[in-house]
């Protein structure tokens, strides 16, 4: 007999650990922000699993609302190259 909650917990935790590692190892700034969003949303899933629905939903509202702001700042306020330019030879 497989416990459904255990399966959900293991899957969510695995995604979260993977995403957390990707946050710090990705080379592109926008990829970091995307993985950060995945991390925060899976944390919300784990909250819901712990029967804390309000905390989980507020987690999504607050952090999924804040991550695009971070995204915008990441694009606009850093000196990193944003868009891939065509090569000289083309």
């Amino acid at each position, binding site marked *: 007999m497989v416990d*459904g909650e255990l399966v959900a917990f293991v899957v969510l935790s695995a995604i979260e650990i993977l995403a957390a590692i990707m946050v710090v190892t990705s080379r*592109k700034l926008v990829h970091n922000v995307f993985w950060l969003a995945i991390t925060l949303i899976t944390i919300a899933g784990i909250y819901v699993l712990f029967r804390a629905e309000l905390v989980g939903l507020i987690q999504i509202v607050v952090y999924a609302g804040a991550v695009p702001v971070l995204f915008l700042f990441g*694009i606009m306020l850093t000196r990193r190259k944003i868009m891939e330019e065509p090569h000289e030879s083309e």
Partner: protein
Amino acid sequence: MTGHLIDLYAWSYALANFVLWLTALPVQGIAAIANVATGSVPDPLTGTLVFLDSEPLTAFVAVIIEINIMLVWAAALNLFTLMWIERKLYSRLQDRRGIMIGLGSFDFLAATLGRIPLLGRPFRRPSHLGTGYLQNLADGIKLIQKEVITPARADKWMFHAAPVIIAVSTLMAFVALPWSEGMWIMGSYETRIVGGVSTPVPVNPWGILFILAVFSIAPLGILIAGWASNNKYTLIGGMRAAAQLMSYEIPLALCVIAVVVFSGTLDPFELVRRQSERPFTFGQWTIPWLPNWYVLNPLMWIAFIVFFISVIAESERIPFDIPEAEAELVEGWTTEYSGMRFGLVFAFKWLRALVGAGLISILFLGGWSGPTFVTLGAPNLADITATYSIPILPQEFWFVLRVYIIFVVFVWIGWSVPRIRIDQILNIGWKRLVPLSLLAILLGAGARAWLGGF
């Protein structure tokens, strides 16, 4: 212009009512079957669940079936109907007839029907004289056939992830959006005393909050779509979309808070139950024949108007469609998508409008409450002595009717006013709607404190 014997335009509008009715019918059919199969369970989805709930795997399969019924109903049928309403209505606002492909456009079908004696002479008519309901289906088939092109310098992985994020987060809202007392996925039954009889009533304590939560995921997907396409137009469109959606989520959430403070619950079922109570009360005045809809209450008018405008902006409809302004930004953040990827990000607008109209209906317009003039008796196979009553005007009908009327107002506003600039959009959002929604919270809290709540 040559005249027609039958005014096809008037005919198609008479048919609109019939289509409304038809879209509510399949659900009632499923409800009847489920009830005959399981006995006394009063709704289609839970009926399926109880029927299959013998072990965990079949329960899981039953939940998947439930979600599929809901998605086919919400995302396919209602999406097609909304698109049809929009295209037909704005065509008439521009004094043309709009899309015309209907069942009669199929040549073989027209020929076959023509051979049936009672239908009279074979009607062979040109393919552009129908109701137009099948045009969107044809467009969908065309989009599925087209090649999915990935731009050469796009970030491939994120480019293909973005439509999935957008579509999934929008469809997730239908999990928590109930269509009637019986047609829902998220929620549970609770036994309450209603009129001296203990009956199970559906409850879902976090329904509205869940919808708001999944609404706030989509801007992330839009930004990713705009950035990953590696195109200046898509990047500008994505940034505009993110700025607009984020700034209009604040008045949206604040108006929901005003209603929540006013009514004291986040439960969509409870909100509709409160609003369907008959004597309309405002302080010491009561009007016996008026239902207790929040939109009729003067204290909620500001919240209603601000919420309505915010929903139009959240679904990127025309006065606020600067993120995809086709004249200046070449469809904005959806420029580089092709094939069904474009179909997904294109349908996103209508799905959000559908959820938004449902929210307006539940929060302000009494949800699915309405008269069920006649109920038909159906045999109950589990219990021979009992009968199951099927209302001839089901709750889904009243809900869908409200949603479509709200959507018609969206289209009407959208095709009557010009598009406004991005700085004007943000000015309206931050300088007008946010203070007004704070005022609405103040009014709701005041009503709660001094008039005792509603």
